[in-house]
């Protein structure tokens, strides 16, 4: 998929675990795992807003576009 979710990198920078982040942004650990492993098909703006607020970052820090031929 062309959109890559680099959540692991930002979580490591902010030293926050998956369980803690899931609780703070009010999603299940399973859903956070789906997001981290690039299995999600869509992300709500409200979820993206919560992630950026908790990790103190921009959407571009978490989401990356990679062209199909580069993958």
């Amino acid at each position, binding site marked *: 998929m062309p959109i890559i979710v680099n959540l692991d990198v930002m979580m490591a920078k902010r030293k926050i675990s998956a369980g803690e982040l899931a609780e703070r942004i009010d*999603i299940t650990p399973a*859903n*956070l795992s*789906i*997001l981290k492993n690039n*299995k*999600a*098909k*869509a*992300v*709500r703006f409200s*979820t993206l807003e919560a992630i950026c607020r908790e990790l103190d970052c921009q959407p571009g820090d978490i989401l990356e576009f990679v062209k199909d031929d580069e993958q």
Partner: protein
Amino acid sequence: MNIKWTHERSLMLSRVLTWAMFLLACAVLFLIPIITEWYDAVSGKPPVRVVLTVCLYISDVFAILAIWELNLLLRNISKQELFTEKNTRCVRIISWCCFGVAAVCCVLAFWRLLAAMIAVVAAFVGLILRVVKNMLAAATEMREENDYTI
């Protein structure tokens, strides 16, 4: 006595009727020779026992398969599994069983024209189920999209 009609009771009725139909279809397997013998005796037309027997056996197998898939579908519905690949497959198989019966009736129509009408009805039901399958497949895709929206 006021019986409240609920979704669960409706589902239970569907399952009971499906099982009754399944038992009937299985019983018919053993009764086909008697049915064809009786038909030849009362029809007053040239005998078609062999062709009729073969066609009825094949149609009954399709019917048993379709009813079995229907039972699987109802079981999944009772488990709240509605828009799944398994259910789409069930409906697809039932529609192909209908087309199978239509094909068999087309062959029988060479001997008994009435079978052509049954073929048309069976093909029509198969077509309706095919469209239902397409709709179910689209709904399954939408549900999956929704499930993977975080």
